[in-house]
């Protein structure tokens, strides 16, 4: 049996999870929530993580019913992400690894999402749509790499949603995306927005500028409601995502789709992807907010795979990096 503990804190979530051979023993998490109209700044986020990380660690061990001696390896997020929060979490991981005398393992955050999705859904070799606040990628595995077939050429889809939420002052609790999703259910009027697909790539910055410019005007003139805007924004950006996923599937001849990342728990996105899959005779795999949104178990799971394939990170190599592409990692645990 191999037990791995994973530390994640690359953005505004801090999570610590413990995995034992594919079983999630514990996965507690805290979110740094900012007031409406504000995003989260790196230094404030790091301060939040510093304040709660030891409590979360204690919870993770207690819920799993394990002692430090039972752990085989300490995995942490090496990147990509925000510098200050990453440093905070890596420092704690490094410290406990030395206190407990356990090997360390630096994990690519995106790979964590993919491996967690594969574990939970049992998808074998899916085309992966990875959508979150910082990432928008269509990924498929080939020859020891998760290769990026399509991606955003500017901002991530989650970033577009978050910033739209700030414009019309939607609450960040529990997350702006969740609140947009709930409001969109009450919207009915479809407002046309820019739609930008370039081959298998997408662009969201034009949509954001357009809606930033138009939103308050349209709302104050009574042309449409905030709910209508949420609805139209979701319909537009999700259509783009489903379209590039379908293009990648056609390109690779794939019949499975896995959605991961924070935006991936949006049920409307899952529903649209499901319709596309049905029409192609393909299968959709998705998870809920426990595993879609950043969490510690996903780092533990990717760490588990890496550890079992013989990898460890020496102390002097246990740095972090803000920029770390999914296709930089050699996948040593898959054929």
């Amino acid at each position: 049996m191999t037990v791995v503990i994973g530390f994640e804190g690359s953005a505004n979530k801090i999570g610590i999870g413990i995995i034992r051979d594919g079983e999630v023993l514990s996965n507690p998490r805290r979110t740094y929530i900012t007031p409406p109209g504000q995003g989260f700044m790196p230094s404030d986020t790091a301060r939040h993580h510093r304040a709660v990380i030891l409590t979360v660690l204690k919870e993770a061990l207690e819920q799993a019913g394990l002692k430090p001696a039972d752990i085989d390896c300490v995995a942490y997020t090496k990147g990509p992400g925000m510098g200050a929060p990453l440093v905070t979490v890596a420092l704690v991981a490094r410290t406990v690894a030395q206190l407990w005398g356990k090997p360390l393992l630096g994990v690519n955050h995106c790979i964590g999402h993919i491996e967690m999705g594969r574990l939970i859904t049992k998808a074998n070799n899916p085309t992966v749509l990875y959508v979150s606040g910082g990432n928008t990628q269509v990924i498929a595995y080939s020859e020891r790499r998760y290769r990026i077939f399509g991606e955003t050429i500017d901002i991530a889809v989650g970033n577009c949603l978050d910033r739209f939420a700030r414009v019309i002052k939607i609450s960040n609790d529990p997350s702006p995306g969740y609140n947009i999703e709930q409001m969109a259910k009450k919207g009915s009027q479809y407002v046309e927005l820019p739609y930008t697909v370039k081959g298998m790539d997408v662009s969201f910055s034009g949509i954001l500028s357009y809606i930033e410019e138009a939103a308050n005007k349209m709302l104050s003139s009574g042309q449409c409601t905030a709910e209508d805007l949420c609805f139209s924004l979701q319909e537009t950006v999700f259509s783009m995502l489903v379209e590039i996923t379908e293009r990648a599937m056609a390109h690779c001849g794939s019949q499975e789709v896995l959605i991961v990342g924070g935006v991936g728990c949006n049920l409307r996105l899952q529903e649209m992807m499901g319709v596309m899959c049905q029409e192609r005779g393909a299968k959709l795999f998705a998870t809920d907010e426990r595993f879609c949104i950043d969490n510690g178990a996903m780092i533990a799971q990717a760490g588990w795979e890496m550890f079992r394939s013989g990898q460890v990170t020496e102390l002097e190599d246990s740095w972090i990096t803000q920029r770390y592409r999914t296709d930089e990692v050699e996948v040593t645990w898959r054929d």
Partner: protein
Amino acid sequence: MAVPEFLQTAELLKQGAEARVYRAEFLGKPAIVKERFPKRYRHPTLDEKLTHRRTTQEVRSILRCRRAGICAPVVYFVDYTSHCIFLEEIIGSSTVRDHIASAQQSDSGTEQKLQQLAERVGQILARMHDEDVIHGDLTTSNMLLRHSQKDGEPELVLIDFGLSYISALPEDKGVDLYVLEKAFLSTHPNTEALFEKLLKSYAASSKKSSAVIKKLDEVRLRGRKRSMVG
């Protein structure tokens, strides 16, 4: 006869991400019919707008290319109700993708031929961009080589203008090349030098290439070094 009934008798070649492609005969000529069927995952208003826009853009770009002497299929007929385009079938052709793949497998004497082909592609794309046509989905599968009856060089034919549009912006042209670069290098491993050749020839053939290549460098940087949080 209405178009949907006509299609029932046609031979379905493939269902891509975007459309169904049929082979049929149109007024005695061998034709390809591209049918953009409704995508049920999209909002009906958005679907109708996109489908109509893309059908229009596709036809417009093909005509613009043909007027500029760039080979593209002849448009025989367009039906905007069922969103079908009837196109000339490019007889006796193979994709550039298959051509490169088979040339890479056979070892001798193909190197120079491939370089000539890359140069040819660069020239054609330069001419297309000088006409302000942005293809939008450049891949080696969307370029055909038509082998003429004579022994001459095969003709390069551009197809699938479904995501195309008209723009004079260097940014749009740069992204067009960036899309091709990614598709080219992921489909054909170890062809960096060949693609470099293509770009050189593009730069030499287009009047406005320096701004476009500069944008291409910018877009590449955006892709590779973009900070990725979350």
